[in-house]
């Protein structure tokens, strides 16, 4: 009984940590972008203020049940994937649900959020939302393939489909997979550029094209849920890559350093890039990232 309580407490702590870290990273991103643009920029806690304000706004307009469930789906997807990810190595404060095969489950559950959003956005009747969702799903086809290939390469190479298992191998051997199988790492990193949806892959909510796409009918609390689940999801993605390729983290400071460095890749790339068109974005992912993914699998099978 006590351990169940501890687990629940730990899950809540994990969520709060993910929320705080994701939000702060978002704020830091805004600050960094502002500095590149010769501006002073907002304070790093600006995202918290924005989130609280969005939460305090009234939400009087809705478009039916699915519209309510859309943001909820995204939140569920983020939180569930968070629960499967070992935040720190061997730490009882951040328990996670692990079983053999959770990596495959994770691949599915990470796609669940955007699909839920598609349902929600479809019901608003706003053509911008509908087009944005179509674009998002097509783009997902683009980046999911190299991403899955990178993960398959790892699974094949180390004969395990458990995240914890992969993490343990790295911790015990002391070799990070980003050096053991650099091709898989490259494919995963390039695919993660698309997952973050920053420029040049921000085609889903492209403001000058679709007026923020699927989000265009969501204000107030809807947007709050989307924003916070987005932050949690960013943390999930960063931590997952750290766990799979960079040997995990034994304490929070190392985790923050590693994830922040990883986070800087999409951020810096985004500052200086215009937006791709949908088909250009897919072509991009089916170019080098896919090639790296293939090489990674070949490497994993034969070496």
């Amino acid at each position, binding site marked *: 009984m006590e351990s169940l309580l501890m687990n629940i407490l730990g899950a809540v702590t994990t969520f709060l940590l993910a929320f705080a870290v994701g939000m702060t990273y978002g704020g830091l991103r805004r600050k960094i*972008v502002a500095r590149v643009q*010769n501006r002073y920029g907002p304070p790093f806690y600006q995202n918290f203020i924005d989130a609280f304000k969005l939460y305090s706004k009234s939400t009087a307009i809705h478009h039916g049940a699915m519209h309510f469930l859309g943001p909820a789906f995204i939140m569920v997807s983020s939180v569930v994937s968070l629960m499967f990810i070992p935040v720190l190595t061997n730490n009882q404060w951040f328990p996670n649900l692990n079983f053999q095969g959770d990596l495959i489950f994770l691949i599915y559950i990470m796609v669940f959020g955007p699909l839920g959003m598609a349902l929600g956005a479809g019901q608003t009747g706003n053509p911008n939302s509908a087009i944005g969702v179509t674009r998002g799903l097509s783009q997902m086809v683009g980046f999911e393939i190299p991403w899955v290939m990178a993960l398959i390469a790892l699974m094949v190479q180390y004969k395990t489909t458990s995240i914890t298992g992969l993490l343990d191998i790295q911790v015990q051997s002391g070799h990070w997979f980003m050096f053991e199988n650099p091709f898989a790492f490259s494919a995963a990193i390039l695919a993660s550029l698309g997952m973050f949806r920053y420029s040049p892959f921000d085609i889903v909510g492209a*403001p*000058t094209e679709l007026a923020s796409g699927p989000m265009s009918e969501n204000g107030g609390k809807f947007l709050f849920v989307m924003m916070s689940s987005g932050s949690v999801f960013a943390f999930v993605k960063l931590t997952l890559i750290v766990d799979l390729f960079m040997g995990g983290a034994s304490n929070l400071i190392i985790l923050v350093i590693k994830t922040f460095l990883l986070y800087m890749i999409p951020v810096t790339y985004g500052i*200086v890039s*215009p937006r791709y068109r949908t088909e250009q974005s897919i072509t991009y992912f089916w170019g080098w990232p896919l090639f790296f993914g293939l090489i990674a699998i070949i490497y994993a099978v034969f070496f």
Partner: protein
Amino acid sequence: MKREKATTLYIGPQHPGITGNMMVRLKVEGDTIVGARTEVGYLHRAFEKLVERRNWVQSFTMMCRFCVPEPDPVEESYARAVEMLDNIEIPERAKWIRVLVLELARISSLLLWHAGQGHSLGLYTMGQWSVGDRNYILDLFEDLTGARIYHMFIWPGGVRRDFPKGFEDKVLKTMDYLEKRLEDYDNLLFENSIFQKRTQGVGYVNPEKVIEHGVVGPVLRGSGIKSDIRIDDPYEVYDKLKFEVPTQTGSDIWARALVRRVEIRQSIRIIRQVIEKIPKGDVYTKVPNPQKWKIARGDAFARTESVRGEVGMYVASDGGAKPRRVHFRGAAYVHAVTLLEEVLIGQNIADVSAIMNSLGTCPPEIER
């Protein structure tokens, strides 16, 4: 493919991607546009009606408000038209100052175009940089005319006042700074492979159509025809200045971008020449008392090269103290409705905003 039902998509009037306040109603199949209809009129202030109630000098305060991003060519057109009507000869120095003001306005408008083109394609850093740098040009305007946006500086009879102390040095310093920044812009925008991919071959306008529709300026030059009013029909002192008119043959967004890239450098070159060669003397001719100023019956049409093409002003007088008719020809007027509707068909919805920016659509001068 015909099975797909066309969706109606409204770009504007409230839309972050639209230039100003207008609307394009698109019929969309998938991501492709199959029909487009422009709707304007959201900014109609009836200037041309209002000048009927104002005298010749009062009307002049309205002129700069015709086109917000680049007000000076409009002032220049009006001033020149009134001078033609009343046979006013303006001092030599005033002409040079006018050229300086016009070229500064060109630079400021081109910087705004950089921002718009970058912003429309999702490159927000470009917008932040060039709008930030535009403040330095506006500072010069503030020094010279006292206002940032609406200068009301070029008026019938010359310009309102002479350079303030030390203005020439400030201009040269700003130009030096700007030239340094233009290298950064090259690195960020023109050498950006994604920008090239997004613009090459997009927004193609048949050169034949450009002429047919009477579209001029960078759009015409981007389709391979060398045309510039500053050279073809020189006004003020442009015939004494050396500058090049760039042309490109692509007739797409990329070609127009390259034309504008050279144009901003040529404007800097002209400004340097003006500072070097400007003669001494008066800056305005005395015009009659504005309350009693009557102009003999007649009409005049003056046109000026702006960043978006030629802007013209038709002024007709009936011999009274107020203009009979002032009719403004906006550069965007001829293409924003008819040509834009044709160009958009077959394009991707992602490019609507970029195409409008590239053509130089400016709603206030369409509706006036």
